[in-house]
């Protein structure tokens, strides 16, 4: 397929790029083991400092609430959305009207996050001054995060459903399952991997985001990324910042690898092993 010489060249370019992808992250980890002031060598000093920093823990708690809360809600909304569009949209519908749902779904994906964030900032500002509800804080951040996650979950679920034999739905009906039973006993189990994938994707997107969080946050809703950003703005990159960064990178890497190997294992297992008993 690919000539041997070209293969060597490809390896020669690619391995350094892989290395380059992880160099900055590794550097963050390296700096996080900086010694205490006026000392040399490596130490866990920065991590020790973190342990006593209540602000960091509060920010971490808020980040987790934000990620889990928004991902759970967007998984519910997105699953229904992907399911509905796949199952109930008229097959032969054409024209502008039929494309509106797709346009709506793709908007959050394609809109630059800065415009996204600022739109929300202004909107929540107006709503708050008009009604007193939705003051900037964790609630507005959760709403914004749900908004950008829903399309990704919907697309994941939609792709899974669209890949299925359409007669499966008829078969469930044929076998005495009404709409709700079909949803519970056919759709949910069959789409389950996509739902879990969508939920994890939602969490990842939430953790990754800074821009939208930044513009929808209020004074009392500093999350980890915002905490880091303002810490850098105030006093530059400190060992503490590096320690937080290292922990965040480490968590993501571990979660990604665990998820990767679990799904791979399950896929392989599904091909050979039997499932549980009929009862």
């Amino acid at each position, binding site marked *: 397929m690919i000539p041997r010489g070209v293969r060597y060249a490809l390896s020669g370019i690619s391995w350094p790029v892989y290395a380059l992808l992880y160099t900055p*992250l590794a550097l*963050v980890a390296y700096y996080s083991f900086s010694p205490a002031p006026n000392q040399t060598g490596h130490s866990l000093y920065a991590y020790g400092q973190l342990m006593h920093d209540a602000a960091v823990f509060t920010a971490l708690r808020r980040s987790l609430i934000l990620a889990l809360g928004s991902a759970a809600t967007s998984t519910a909304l997105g699953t229904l959305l992907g399911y509905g569009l796949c199952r109930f949209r008229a097959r032969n519908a054409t024209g502008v009207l039929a494309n509106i749902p797709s346009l709506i779904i793709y908007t959050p994906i394609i809109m630059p996050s800065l415009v996204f964030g*600022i739109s929300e900032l202004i909107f929540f500002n107006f709503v708050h001054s008009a009604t007193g509800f939705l003051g900037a804080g964790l609630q507005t951040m959760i709403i914004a995060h749900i908004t950008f996650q829903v399309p990704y979950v919907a697309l994941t679920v939609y792709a899974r459903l669209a890949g299925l034999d359409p007669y499966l739905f008829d078969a469930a009906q044929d076998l005495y399952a009404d709409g709700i039973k079909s949803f519970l006993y056919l759709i949910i189990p069959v789409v389950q991997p996509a739902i879990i994938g969508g939920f994890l994707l939602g969490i990842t997107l939430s953790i990754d985001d800074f821009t939208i969080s930044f513009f929808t946050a209020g004074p009392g809703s500093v999350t980890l*990324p915002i905490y880091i950003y303002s810490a850098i703005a105030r006093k530059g990159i400190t060992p503490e910042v590096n320690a937080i960064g290292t922990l965040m990178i480490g968590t993501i890497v571990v979660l990604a690898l665990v998820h990767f190997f679990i799904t791979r294992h399950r896929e392989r297992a599904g091909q050979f092993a039997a499932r549980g008993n009929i009862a």
Partner: protein
Amino acid sequence: MSAAVKTEQEIESGRQRLRLWVTSGPGLVWIMLFLLLPSAVLLGIAFFSADDYGSPVLPLSVQPFQQVAGYSLLGWDPGNIIIVLRSLEQAGIATLVSALLSYPLVFFILSRPASIRPLLLLFIVLPSWTNQVVRTYAWMELLGPAAPVSWVAHILHAVPPDLGLAPGRFAVTTGLAYNYLPYMIVPLYASAEKLDWTLVEAGRDLYAAGLRLFWHTVFPQTLPGLLSGIIFVAIPAFGDYVVPQLLGGDKALMIGSLIANQFTETPDWPYGAALTIIMLVFTGLGLVGFRVLTRKLGGAEEATI
């Protein structure tokens, strides 16, 4: 047929529509309420005047757009145009770098056994799952004045002593390419995976080997993936906020920071909204151009809902 009697089919399609709204409705309404409506408000603000605090007030005005074009009480200033051009240039270079790196990486992955390809792909995507701020400040450290990379730059007289490669335009471009490289690789990989190698073999007779062979056989087949990748990199890179903010400094200011300033440090909402319209116009032009190109090339459209 009397008007009062509905056919079974009409009743059935009515039921279908109800089911569609019960399931898809909440999600669609959510996006409309919390994104489409807010962005419509934002765009509307661009046509208002600003009060002393930068908030929008009546009367309607075109002044925000004059400001965007560079006109102010002090006369005309090319600053904004320079920033837009610089944003285009920096996003463009980042896109080009990503595209050039993506080809060898994609075919490197494809040259490996099928069982380890997903893992190799995962390791490309993984850094982009860490937080934007973390992965960007990591580059501040890597390119900062104290880092070995900057010493090398000093020796080569690329930067003045005591300054690092960050902040600066090199750092911004690097940061953007680093951030968005996976968005180029994933669609390119998807189209390269489906590559018809028999065409390449057939081309071997016609075009000898090397770059000519690549250009005439591989490139056309992977073009749809490349075009998607360009869209996925260029659009967010053009409007990026975090990277120019942390790695840029004054000389590498991009339109994202300019817009953000109008809503944070020195508020002027109508002006900021007008700048946003400019950004969206460029985004829209890019998307339309992409669609036209894909259609012209007869390439497969991306999977759409």
